[in-house]
């Protein structure tokens, strides 16, 4: 029995390159390679969760209603040390927006165009639900859902809908309450569906697109032509009215400005502690006839959305302006009765 222990993998090197070289390689193996590998793996392990932690949805579930509107529910990890979180919405026509933090606490939020500013203040997970009208379009009988999803998601299709086109491979499909529910991966997805017809039952009307029988087809065509003519005439009349209207509006605004709004200097006298950058905003609104859209202010002062939003909120707090919703935008108006209140 040989008492000497010789590592098998170094035996060959010993013979070929000598002891000194073998020892160096051994040092590299034991002292450098392994710690480096371990360090690399630790870094990789650390990077992976960070990459997918904040701002990435934990869950994303969508429900399509028969009229093409979509309900979105999502759960998102957010930075617990941040005061607010800017959530990109999947479109700008939003209804019924609700954001809740941990323990179902209602969070103050403001939907501005296609993003929502949610005041998280210490929450690490938020749940958001809203209805959106931008994800489904319709061409003839075919409805098309399209989304660039940030994560895997589930999609519940309407009852009696049948999928007739898909650009992605589904991960799963289940039947939930007689409806198809697909699980899809992140990235661009497009699904075409139409409402199922039952050919065995004669004269069944498609729930979405009633098919006309040949007897009524000619009436429908005549009706269509008449309707198109009426719409055309209305559009022409309206477009003519629009040309006249801005001049009238302008005159009205100018008059109103003279009568109702107070000038910027008076506001500065009434509110001497107002910030310099806020003064510029007030001056611009005043010059603009006493009102301006928040988007116009952003363009004018080249400010990010959140910064301008805060500035406007600050002015609102100081009772200098009031904010109105108009065409899904924030209309910022100088308050008319500042002097009276003073």
């Amino acid at each position: 029995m040989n008492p000497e222990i010789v590592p098998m993998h170094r035996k060959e090197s010993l013979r070929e390159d000598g002891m000194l070289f073998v020892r160096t390689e051994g040092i590299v193996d034991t002292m450098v390679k392994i710690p480096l590998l371990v360090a690399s793996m630790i870094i990789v392990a650390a990077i992976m969760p960070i990459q997918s932690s904040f701002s990435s949805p934990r869950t994303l579930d969508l429900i399509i209603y028969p009229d093409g509107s979509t309900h979105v529910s999502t759960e998102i990890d957010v930075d617990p040390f941040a005061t607010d979180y800017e959530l990109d919405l999947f479109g700008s026509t939003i209804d019924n927006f609700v954001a809740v933090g941990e323990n179902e606490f209602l969070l103050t939020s403001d939907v501005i165009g296609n993003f929502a500013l949610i005041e998280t203040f210490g929450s690490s997970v938020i749940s958001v639900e809203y209805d959106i009208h931008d994800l489904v379009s319709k061409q003839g009988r075919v409805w098309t859902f399209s989304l660039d999803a940030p994560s895997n998601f589930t999609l519940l299709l309407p009852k009696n809908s049948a999928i007739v086109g898909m650009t992605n491979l589904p991960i799963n499909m289940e039947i939930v309450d007689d409806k198809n529910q697909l699980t899809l991966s992140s990235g661009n997805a497009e699904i075409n569906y139409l409402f199922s017809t039952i050919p065995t039952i004669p004269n069944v009307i498609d729930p979405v697109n009633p098919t006309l029988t040949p007897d009524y087809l000619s009436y429908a065509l005549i009706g269509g032509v008449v309707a198109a003519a009426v719409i055309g005439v209305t559009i022409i009349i309206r477009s003519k009215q629009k040309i006249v209207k801005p001049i009238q509006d302008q005159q009205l605004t100018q008059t109103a400005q003279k009568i109702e709004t107070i000038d910027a200097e008076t506001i500065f006298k009434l509110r001497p502690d107002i910030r310099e950058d806020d003064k510029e905003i007030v001056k611009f609104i005043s010059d603009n006839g006493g009102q301006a859209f928040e988007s116009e202010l952003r363009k004018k002062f080249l400010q990010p959305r959140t910064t301008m939003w805060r500035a406007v909120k600050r002015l609102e707090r100081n009772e200098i302006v009031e904010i109105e919703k108009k065409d899904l935008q924030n209309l910022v108006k100088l308050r008319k009765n500042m002097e009276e209140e003073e």
Partner: protein
Amino acid sequence: MKTLALFTIFVLIFGTVSTSLVGDAYAQKDPNILLRIATQADEQISNQLERSYGNSIPSDVQTLYLQGQTAVVSLKNSLPDDIEQAREDFLMAMKLFKQISKMISEPIEKSTISKSTRVADRDLSSELDRLEKYVENLKTISKKHNTGIIFDEIDQLIESARTQIETETASPEIIDQLKHHVNSIQQKIHDSSSDGTSNRINQFIEKQLKTINKKLTKASDAGATADQIGEAVKLIDQIKSSIENNDIDNAKLVFHELNKLVKNIERSVR
């Protein structure tokens, strides 16, 4: 050593991009779902063709449909052994069926389901479904905040609207009435929850102020000017005073300004 360094870099790069790769490298839980979807689409297209053209299907549509059917047959034969082929067949079949369905469809301009189109042609059932879901959310939040809001009236309205829709006697007014109720409940919840929200924000700001004070001490040691520190201290005092006066909204606004200022100070002494 060079090899080792390259290997390390490779590991790091792979680690960084691996998360995005995971998204693409998915797998069906059950590959048969591909066949189920494709078969359903095939049947649907077949029905649509019969409805639209009867026995005189245009040759180009017929050709596409036959190609689609062939892809479905191939998909069926590929399962369960050749998953890769099955996936290709599925995507091919669905692409062809989509093309056919668009050809069958009337040549109407593409329209997005926007709010304006809804007004012209409102689907009251969908609107009610959405509102009902929203009310359920509000109920949960209301319960959590102990608002004491009673939802009986709105529940009855929903029930009544549902019945009217089922019997086709519903008018848009009932949905508008519901929306009005929902808005008032939402406002009540908002008012009731404001105390809890204020406390939460209060606690958060107080906690963050401690951290900011530490940052300012550090910045002062690192050479921040007395003016910079003084300005920050002034804002801190303003926040504390706002909190004392229960003016949380103002405290929030000033806190944002303070955060910005502290970041600038930190940047200037770096």
